[in-house]
């Protein structure tokens, strides 16, 4: 099941400051709720370049539902001049046959003294989490990416670097990450809280309901496949007054965004 997400936000720091943060995997990883970074190969301690690879795992927990992925991610492209980086990640369920693959592209653009960040994520999930039509897992993917984006926004803003960083240690016990992940609304601790309150302009674009295949088109003739325009879907988080959590944006099925998340994650840890 394929999903696409787009997030856009600005942070009040100049692009020169934002860029290195984006390359610091140890600081970025904890933005991802439930992620544990296990190892970094290639690149330098603080420097990331094309080819730098990471292994890790990511536990997605929604209510009683838990899916854990393990796998790897690697920077596919790091273009400092264009302020663009992309990475590919692939993971497998720790306790099932399913897989998750993600491609993430982040672009930074200077806007005066601020930085506009655009994150595009495409995510493909297989296995049990993908095999549901009712939105059980549907809710999960978008939510995780949202939390990630919000945390990232907070991190780039600099205010919560420390908090985020505290959780980022390499090889940190999985339980810590899991605890963090499971705390509802706490995502990565305070970063999440701040992420959702600090970015009134975080915009997300939901991907359309995945098309059904061929002759079993789920939509009747004449039905539109995308139900709302991007503008309509764009959701100003702050306007969702009273919503306890950042809205998950993509009621797309399939969970896993989780993986997407895979961003900084994944390589078959247990492979040994």
């Amino acid at each position: 099941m394929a999903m696409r997400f787009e997030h856009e936000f600005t942070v009040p720091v100049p692009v020169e400051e934002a860029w290195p943060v984006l390359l610091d995997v140890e600081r970025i990883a904890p933005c991802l709720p439930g992620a544990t970074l296990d190892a970094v190969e290639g690149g330098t301690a603080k420097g990331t370049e094309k080819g730098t690879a990471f292994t890790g795992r990511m536990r997605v927990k929604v209510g009683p539902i838990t899916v854990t992925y393990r796998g790897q991610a690697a920077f596919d492209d790091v273009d400092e001049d264009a302020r663009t980086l992309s990475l590919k990640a692939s993971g497998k369920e720790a306790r099932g046959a399913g897989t998750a693959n993600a491609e993430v592209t982040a672009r930074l653009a200077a806007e005066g003294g601020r930085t506009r960040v655009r994150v595009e994520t495409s995510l493909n999930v297989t296995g049990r989490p993908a095999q549901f039509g009712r939105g059980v897992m549907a809710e999960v993917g978008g939510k995780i990416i949202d939390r990630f984006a919000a945390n990232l926004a907070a991190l780039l803003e600099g205010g919560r670097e420390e908090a985020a960083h505290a959780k980022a240690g390499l090889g940190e016990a999985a339980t810590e990450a899991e605890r963090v992940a499971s705390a509802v609304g706490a995502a990565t601790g305070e970063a999440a809280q701040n992420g959702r309150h600090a970015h009134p302009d975080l915009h997300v674009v939901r991907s359309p309901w995945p098309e059904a295949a061929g002759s079993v088109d789920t939509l009747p003739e004449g039905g539109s496949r995308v139900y709302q325009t991007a503008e309509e879907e764009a959701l100003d988080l702050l306007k969702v007054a009273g919503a306890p959590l950042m809205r998950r944006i993509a009621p797309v099925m399939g969970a896993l965004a989780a993986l997407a998340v895979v961003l900084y994650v994944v390589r078959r840890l247990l492979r040994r």
Partner: protein
Amino acid sequence: MTEQIKEREALGGAEVGRARRRKEDARLITGRTQWTDNIQLPGMLHVAFLRSPMAHARITRVDASGALARPGVVAAFSGADLAGEQGSLPCAWPVTEDIVIPDHPPMAVDEVRYVGEAVACVVAIDRYAAADALEAVEIDYEPLDPVLDMTEALKEGSPKVHEAGNKSFTWKFAEGDIDAAFRDAPVVIDRTYVQQRLIPSAMEPRAVVAQTDGDQFTLHSSTQIPHILRVMLALTTGIPEHKLRVIAPDVGGGFGSKLQVTAEEVLCLLLTRRMGKPVKWTESRSEGNLTVHHGRDQLQHIRLAAESDGRVRAVQVDLLADMGAYLMLVTPGIPLLGAFMYSGIYKMDAYDFTCTGVFTTKMPTDAYRGAGRPEATYAIERVMDELAAEIGVDPMEVRRRNWIEHSEFPYTTICNLTYDSGNYEAATERALALFGYDKLRAEQADRRERRDPVQLGIGISTYTEMCGLAPSRVLGSLSYGAGGWEHADVRMLPTGKVEVVTGTSPHGQGHETAWSQIVADSLGVPYEDVAVLHGDTATSHKGMDTYGSRSLAVGGIAVVRACDKVKEKARHVAAHLLEASPDDVEFSEGRFQVRGTGASRTIQEIALATFAAHDLPDGFEPRLDASATFDPDSFSFPHGTHLCAVEVDTETGATAIRSYVAVDDVGAVVNPLIVEGQVHGGIAQGIAQALFEEAVYDVDGNLLTTTMADYLLPSAADLPSFVTDRTETPATTNPLGVKGVGEAGTIASTPAVVNAIVDALRPYGVHDVRMPCTPERVWRTLRSREEESA
């Protein structure tokens, strides 16, 4: 009155025609029986299959060693591990000379082609250990492009499911001058209908238990076809047929889904051969939704040419049939079973049919209740309504103008089938009366007038079908890999009780009851004194099993014939004991009597005398049993008229069936209660296709409907009370005059419901709603029409 009816009357008893409650039900309903999953054998191991999460991928690495380290695990295998012995799952219906039948390993070796395909298995001491250990099997895949849309699949440059391409076969049938019929035709209706993919949902999931003593193999399986399975497994696994016993214990439903030789059956046999211990596999419901063969999934392009008064000239059908990733037992033959039914009950001058079987990266399709005939009936009955709308004539009147009249039987249709009997007028008249057709039409007019947000629609289905799948010669001419006869043994036991061994394999149809009724009347023994044995190739050595509404129309006749032979033997013994000529001995209600005297013997006395064998006619073998194998000359053709009234809420798109009338003509009836049950269940299943069920794959080939939360089966709460009745026009092709009722309801009801929905919405410019007609689909269809007209 026909010969057949005389013969039926000659059965003479009170059992046939009686609405007996089924004798097998107590044990089936309470579960106090041997369902396959109930079987426990000493040392039995349990198998769990790891299934592909990918619709299409190359397998680059399999490492099952991790599973071996898990507690309770005895063995683990990949497809490659078994490649040398697992063979290829059989397709027994190569419909054309040049059909592409891809290799179909029970466990994938190099490539997976649908989500759910088995890629590895774990054998453990219990089911939990096996399932847990699947987590430790490592498989790497290199994804390939999925192939999901039949039309796209046939295009140049499409990704290929198999090396040989995505087309399996093209099969054609034509009769009459189709071009002439369409040339200058005053009316041409041109429609495309989608037969959505369905998932058979038998109450009992599939289960297999295989065991061996090193020489002899026994396979228990929740199957419809123990006999066919034995032959096919012998050919597939190399286990000699005489070393293999197949048992279908009590089986909880099939609907065609257990008319199959499954990967799991083959693999369980191989595993027990390798490991020397019994092995069991039982599927979960979600596993079943992924991997039980699916049904329907056809794209039907149908054109109909007619005169301006609605008389049909010709029908042309161009069909794409989704085979799924492989051809299973009779996958390619399913659309052929419908090929001869597109003319329905109507007369026409020309017919042209083309079907192309297409491979996609989805679960293979195969037989599902009705198999080919529901699709054909749907298309012709839908398009007859369209014709009626086009020329502005009541849809029932259009049917009257075209149907075969009662006086015209036997009638050979444009499809070269000879319908032996039928009375469409009688069934229709009865249905219209029960339905209150005219009154409902008046209400419909009123609601239209008032622009009532809840509109009323009336749907008609005047269907027929071909069933009693049998004539071996005909099946042979269609390249089917087996015959269509059926077998029965009837034996009198020393105490006067009777054992019937049938080659049919009931899985919910009530054969034990119906066969007992037939035998009770034929032999004049109490109904309770008859036992029916089935489903075990060691006791039932010969049979063609149960599918295609064939059991009574073929297997039931074999029972009658075997009883006749037993009676004839008994007559000789009776004559001997009564010191009379056999010609002077009459048989009636279980008693042999010398004509004109009071001297008589009961058949039970004859049975005991035969057993003792103290005083038998010279040269008489001391046995009171007989076998019969029956192979009819033709199919049977049940028919009927179903009428459905649906209320459509135009604000929400919700539909509600307000009334449903079914008048079926299934010929003579052995047990009206069983017929009633078949009709009710059949209608429910057909309504389910019209309104509820659909297997949905997403664009990546993931099946989304793996649970009943997403694959919606209606329950009694979602269905109206059906009004049913019967007319009885006996079949002339078998001595009981029976036709078969297993599929009729399913075949009839789907078009009746959709015709009603479309009828309700015609004032809004709607001429079709794709199945299943969900509220959202109805709403969107209405909305798109509104937008068009705005």
